[in-house]
């Protein structure tokens, strides 16, 4: 069996992404009771060196839904790394206990390193500020379900565009699907890094940068909101200056297109007011639901289960 790692959107072609999207659609068609035996006897190691609610629970729930089992930890303090063990020793130990490794880690490139040294397939559940490919796949799945297409959509990213790995991963994927115009809404200190704007394409890509969320509302088909992440700031004073930069509420959405969808990787703090939840634009809880489906699809692809 070929080792199927999922480390970065950089590694995936449009065809590869399409396989994940098609598999997820197929998973949804299969009744829950018929999924329970698909990964029976398989064990997933869930190695979360950094706190997570949705991604970890969603992966673990996905594995249980498919009849598999889960071992692992939810924080670094509970591991031998806190006793001084190297990361590579931890991976070489865990690979004796499981069939697939899911890793979240605060350092960038950790999943790539794990995939290089382990004979087991490795899935990146977020590496520092770099990549979050499973979130990107579920975001794409959500977009395709809502709009039946990706190319030609106008997408505004809002909030922390500097540190948000979900923005970095999704932006790269959207460009693969020939999305060629983005609005970037952020405070000056949280702009999208320049290296992410230098993506080689055979078509021009336009980035419209603004500080004002109001500019994005009538413009966009999709507004992708992000949390200003306190934990990513080296200087907490800088965090305090920008933490309340954006707060989207239902009243502001009166000028939006009827078809506008608002996405957010969650957790949110105050960047989306609760009254938005009641509008037809709110799509973020649908993302959570799609995440469970997509992560089942990813696990099935790893184990080459044909549906």
């Amino acid at each position, binding site marked *: 069996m070929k080792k199927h790692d999922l480390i970065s959107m950089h590694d995936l072609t449009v065809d590869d992404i399409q396989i994940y999207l098609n598999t997820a659609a197929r998973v949804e068609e299969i009744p829950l009771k018929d999924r329970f035996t698909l990964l029976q006897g398989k064990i997933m190691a869930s190695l979360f060196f950094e706190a997570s609610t949705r991604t970890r629970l969603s992966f673990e729930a996905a594995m249980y839904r498919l009849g598999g089992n889960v071992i692992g930890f939810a924080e670094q303090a509970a591991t031998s790394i806190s006793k001084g063990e190297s990361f590579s020793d931890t991976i070489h130990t865990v690979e004796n206990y499981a069939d697939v490794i899911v890793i979240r*880690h605060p350092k*960038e*490139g950790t999943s790539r390193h794990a995939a290089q040294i382990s004979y087991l397939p490795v899935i990146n559940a977020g*590496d520092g500020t770099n*990549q979050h490919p499973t979130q990107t796949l579920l975001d794409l799945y959500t977009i395709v379900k809502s709009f039946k297409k990706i190319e030609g959509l106008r997408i505004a990213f809002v909030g922390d565009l500097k540190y948000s790995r979900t923005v970095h991963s999704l932006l790269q994927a959207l460009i693969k699907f020939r999305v060629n115009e983005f609005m970037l809404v952020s405070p000056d200190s949280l702009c999208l890094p320049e290296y992410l704007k230098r993506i080689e394409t055979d078509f021009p890509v336009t980035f419209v940068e603004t500080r004002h969320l109001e500019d994005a509302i009538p413009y966009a088909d999709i507004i992708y909101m992000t949390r200003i992440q306190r934990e990513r700031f080296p200087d907490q004073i800088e965090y305090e200056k920008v933490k309340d930069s954006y707060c989207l509420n239902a009243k502001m959405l009166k000028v939006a297109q009827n078809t506008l969808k608002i996405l957010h990787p969650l957790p949110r703090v105050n960047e989306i007011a609760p009254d938005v939840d009641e509008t037809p634009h709110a799509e973020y809880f649908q993302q959570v639901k799609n995440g469970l489906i997509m992560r089942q699809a990813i696990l099935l692809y790893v184990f080459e289960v044909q549906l």
Partner: protein
Amino acid sequence: MSNKKIQMIPKIECGIVIDHIPAGDGIRILEILQRDPGLKNVPITFGMNYQSNKLGTKDMLKIQKEDLCERTIQHISLVSPGVTIKRIRNFEVVEKVSIQPPIDLINLLKCLNPGCISQNEPGLKTHFVLSDPENKRVTCVYCEREFFINELSPII
């Protein structure tokens, strides 16, 4: 007086000549040679700003040692791609190659990103790919950040 009539660096009987170095890059290559422990006590002569049909002006280095190690050649290729390395035996050029940077740069440069695993995991070799040779930009395989080569510290 024409520069051509000036005595160039004296010929060497056996060793390596690094030629066609764009003027100004020679001093940076000399720094690389000084860091190579295999070149300790090896006579090296360095000339600057010679006339060159190809480059206008060029620098040149002559090293009285039979060969250079592969890592040193790779470091030179990063600083000044396209320079010529000539192997000299009995005062004659026996081999001449123009060096280009490798596509995969293994453990040659240190990643600038403090959050990169290559900076934090003992024993892990850094790995960059030459993502934009024209502008001398490389991308870290681990953290996926792109840097100019001259932003990064060499690993000796």
